[in-house]
């Protein structure tokens, strides 16, 4: 058996509470209530244990991590432990004084999410009016030597604003800008029919982004990926199961990814009762799909396996009802016709390009958004 390498990143979901109600939120549909959230002291211990395990960076996310009144103490604890500290945030609720406290606690990097290039549609997708507040946060951030990444979540409803989003990024001048296609888990899964772009939209957006990447090189780093329903091979989800990333949920469950709780029979150990190293190295959840021993065909005889590790287990379950099969987005998957059928329903493909239709999953086009609730 191969040695288990240490995790490199700890994703700390500090809370599921959030002032936004984004229709594509990646949080699970079953949200953790405030009463069950970990205390400041437990987070500080988890961060120390993570650094001892070899973790280099802590990504504080949620929900909205700023909803934790102790966010300053938690960031300070990460830096004391020797970790690189990133805050993944909507920028709400925040004021200038609190931002200064957070920066002084040692924050290295802010990833600020945007729902679009302008207020109206951003409000529709997030179920709140926060666009102007986010713009204010970018002006405050200019006072500090903290890295800024703008994260634009893109989908069918806002891809037409891509040029305006790039213009906004050039105006704000962050070090990085990410264009993240919605991925279909959690709340995005139930809203998929309205979020999934067409192939034409995807191809057009990739042309624009490639040009922007070249034009802004050395000035703003532009990052994006092809949305996986439209790619030939699956994404290397989380860099491989139990290989690089460990996620701690608000109540302390240690998980290989955001969505793993959708897989039936998964049992997660909790950081309140077990040391982090023990969970990372030996827990059943992390061992379940680690390495190559579990790989099915066609992955096991495919050279791509060292690059994509068979793709995403949660997606395999959500689409093919079996977490142990090749990710159905893979063009070599025996289940690829499920994805083709979804794309055709979205108007994303012509019939000629597709195999015979198969029964689609339960998501049907709906006229109304299902907004993320609060725990």
């Amino acid at each position, binding site marked *: 058996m191969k040695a288990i390498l240490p995790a490199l990143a700890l994703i700390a979901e500090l809370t599921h509470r959030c002032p936004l109600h984004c229709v594509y939120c990646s949080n699970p549909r079953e949200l953790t209530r405030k009463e069950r959230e970990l205390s400041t002291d437990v987070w500080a211990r988890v961060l120390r244990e993570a650094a001892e395990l070899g973790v280099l960076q802590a990504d504080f996310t949620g929900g909205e991590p700023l909803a934790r009144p102790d966010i300053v103490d938690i960031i300070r604890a990460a830096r004391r432990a020797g970790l690189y500290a990133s805050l993944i945030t909507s920028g709400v609720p925040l004021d200038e004084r609190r931002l200064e406290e957070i920066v002084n606690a040692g924050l*290295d*990097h802010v990833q600020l999410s945007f729902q679009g290039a302008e207020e109206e549609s951003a409000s529709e997708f997030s179920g709140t009016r926060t666009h102007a507040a986010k713009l204010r946060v970018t002006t405050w951030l200019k006072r500090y030597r903290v*890295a800024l990444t703008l994260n634009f979540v893109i989908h069918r409803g806002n891809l037409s604003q891509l040029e305006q989003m790039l213009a906004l990024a050039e105006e704000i001048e962050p070090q990085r800008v990410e264009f993240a296609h919605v991925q279909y888990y959690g709340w995005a899964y139930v809203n998929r029919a309205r979020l999934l772009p067409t192939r034409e939209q995807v191809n057009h957006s990739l042309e624009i982004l490639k040009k922007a990447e*070249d034009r802004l090189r050395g000035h703003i780093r532009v990052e994006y990926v092809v949305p996986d329903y439209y790619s030939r091979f699956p994404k290397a989800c989380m860099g491989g199961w139990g290989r690089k990333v460990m996620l701690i949920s608000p109540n302390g469950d240690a998980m290989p990814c955001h969505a793993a709780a959708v897989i039936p029979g998964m049992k997660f150990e909790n950081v309140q009762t077990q040391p982090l190293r023990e969970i990372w190295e030996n827990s059943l959840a992390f061992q379940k799909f680690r390495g190559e021993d579990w790989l099915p065909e066609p992955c096991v005889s495919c050279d791509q396996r060292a690059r994509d590790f068979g793709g995403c287990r949660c997606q395999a379950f959500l689409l093919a009802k079996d977490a142990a099969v090749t990710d159905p987005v893979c063009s070599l998957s025996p289940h690829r016709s499920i994805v083709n059928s979804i794309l055709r329903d979205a108007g994303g493909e012509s019939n000629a390009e597709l195999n015979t239709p198969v029964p689609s999953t339960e998501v049907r086009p709906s006229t109304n958004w299902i907004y993320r609730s609060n725990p």
Partner: protein
Amino acid sequence: MAAPLSLEKRPRLAPGCRLGQTAQQFRILQMPERALRLNGSSLEIIQRCDGEHTVREIISELQDIYSKADPLKVEQDILDYLLLLQNERALDLE
């Protein structure tokens, strides 16, 4: 495209980019979402990206340290490495 690097510029690590080390004591450059592992000469270069040294001075100091290597090769390696860091958006040029 990133403009060719002027020898009179004073590179400085960009916000959110800093030296660190792993639990196994390897030196790394930490930056948003990634880390670069550093060997002897890349560490020597990055330690001089302090907003004080010009590119010319960094080259000259490393040519002294690596005096047995071809000075032109040292210069080219440094320019290539600074360009890589610039494309990673790990440098501010002042």
